[in-house]
């Protein structure tokens, strides 16, 4: 029996209370990590560090929010990091050659969106399992980006453009405002629109969704395109924050984004999870990595810790859901 049929055959359960409990645990985790770090390190509670954590979390969140929709449909997008790298390099080139940041931003978003759409086509029309299709895409994008950049680095962008990633408004970094905007849009879209509800339905039971008249292929294409476009958005923030673009900037982004989605309680088997949960997930992961940084743990430890967190998050999620059923 596959997990999808298991999910479909399980007795209906109250989503609200289950989700409320899950959210409570995660907020508790945020509070505990903050408390521990505040005790261990004086500079953790400084305004500068808190703003830094929020800005870092927002970068992870942009990639992870689109990915959340994909995971809600029981799919996965492993190409997001490589997509960020390609989109950043393409957008950077456009800004350099035309001198227009607006045009660069549009190209970056379009590049991300097109890659996402191609992922969607592979998953729907070619019917390749999503994790392997997007894994193939990862290497195609990596190859393209390295070939296109040929070892070069793009740097030096207009001051106005750099404000997007590094500027402040009323004392808060601009990415944090973008985070709030996209958190709002994402939550409204998933929870309050018919399309959003259809995405949950596809993840919970694709066959039932198809039989009840949901245009499954079109919704899946939308979901992968949104995931790609959000990677495009993240590439713009990266470009303006770093003030440079290199072929390798995406390599360390995919695992944290997946970690944020899974820590946030979105189930790999589809149909369960929220965009807000992913925000909390991004916050927890960033707090852990920031804490390691403050405690002078070498950055070499980050992939090890992120890997362990991914496995723990899925394992805990599966355990708690099994018990709830």
């Amino acid at each position, binding site marked *: 029996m596959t997990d999808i049929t298991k999910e479909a055959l399980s007795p209906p359960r109250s989503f609200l209370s289950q989700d409320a409990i899950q959210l409570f645990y995660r907020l508790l985790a945020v509070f505990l990590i903050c408390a521990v770090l505040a005790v261990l390190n004086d500079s953790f509670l400084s305004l500068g560090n808190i703003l830094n954590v929020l800005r870092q979390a927002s970068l992870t969140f942009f990639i992870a929010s689109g990915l959340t929709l994909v995971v809600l449909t029981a799919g996965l997008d492993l190409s997001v990091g490589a997509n960020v790298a390609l989109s950043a390099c393409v957008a950077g080139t456009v800004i350099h050659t035309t001198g227009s940041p607006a045009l660069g931003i549009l190209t970056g978003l379009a590049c991300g969106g097109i890659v996402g759409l191609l992922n969607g086509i592979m998953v729907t029309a070619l019917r390749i399992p999503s994790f392997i299709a997007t*894994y193939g895409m990862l290497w195609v994008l990596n190859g393209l980006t390295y070939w296109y950049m040929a070892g070069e680095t793009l740097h030096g962008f207009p001051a106005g453009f750099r404000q997007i990633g590094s500027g402040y408004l009323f004392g808060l970094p601009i990415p944090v405002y973008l985070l709030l905007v996209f958190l709002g849009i994402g939550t409204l879209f998933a929870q309050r629109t018919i399309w959003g509800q259809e995405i949950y339905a596809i993840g919970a039971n694709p066959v039932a969704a198809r039989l009840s008249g949901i245009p499954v292929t079109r919704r899946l294409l939308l979901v992968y395109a949104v995931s790609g476009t959000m990677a495009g958005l993240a590439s713009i923030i990266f470009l303006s924050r770093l003030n440079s673009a290199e072929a390798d900037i995406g390599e360390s982004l995919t695992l944290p984004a997946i970690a944020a989605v899974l820590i946030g309680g979105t189930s790999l088997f589809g149909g369960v999870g929220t965009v807000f949960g992913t925000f909390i997930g991004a916050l927890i992961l960033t707090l852990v990595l920031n804490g390691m940084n403050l405690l002078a743990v070498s950055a070499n430890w980050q992939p090890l810790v992120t890997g*362990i967190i991914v496995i723990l998050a899925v394992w805990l999620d599966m355990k708690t859901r099994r018990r709830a059923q």
Partner: protein
Amino acid sequence: MREAAVVSQPNPLQRIPGVAIVLGVLIVLFGAIAPGFLSAANLSNVLVQSTILTMLALPMTLIIMTEGLDLSMGAVLTLTSLCVAIVSLATQSMLLGLGAGVLVGAAFGIVNGWLVAITGIPPFVATLGTLGMAQGLSLIVSDGQSVVGIPHSVRDIYSATLLGIPVPVVIALVTYAAFHGLLYHTRFGSYVFALGGNREALRYAGLSPNKLLIAVYAIGGTMAGIAGLLMTARMNSGHPTAGLGLEFDAIAAVAVGGTSFERGNGWLLGTLLGVLSVGVLRNGLNLISLPSSVQVASVGVLVIVALFLDGLRSRS
């Protein structure tokens, strides 16, 4: 039990065309456009360069047959290669280095198998997590630096010959023979077919599918350990990104070789031809002066095309 194995047995005649055509087309194509491709020296070079991939693609075939996947193989190979380098440097002993690599690789394989079999975490996520762990450990043990000054005993493995055949090719052939025997001529082999096709049958036969699954992943980790020795010998150093993405070439070889991701069928000779296809593709693109980035992208395209065709076959 026997019935399950018979149902899962591939029909090689249906498969030979697919991967053999791919390999044939690639050889004819690069023979025509790449100068020196068909020279004996270059062809022998392709064979030697394909050995490390063979060591990964054979166990990957078994893992994919169980409807699993091991994304951590490249990162584990990197780590075992570093272990071989560090231990052989410290002890000046090739065998101790190999032992360390095999131990670390097998440990990762067992962890992968345990996660997949016991916790039930989907293989691609479980092994993505261990990929991060192996990558992190590689950075930690090497401190991000290359390990140089490897003893000659290690380095010579890659350049030595036996009866005129390069030693890495001999190792790959012996490995192939061992896997062929294991999969087609032992009970364990038919259990592996059943893991993909009919796990219930294993339970009725009084066997533990979980233990068998852990064994399959452990074989993968162990092979990554042996491949780690070849990698260290080939680069004459240990490097913290040496095996990056090699799991993808292995998945490509298995997919092109006609092992199905959906039906749990496997074909080892197809995987071997798939390894050669990937090797010829990379070598040929290299000869016509296309950078390694283009090679990476074209292997990506190869996988997507192979999986698309696999999907078509399984529906027809």
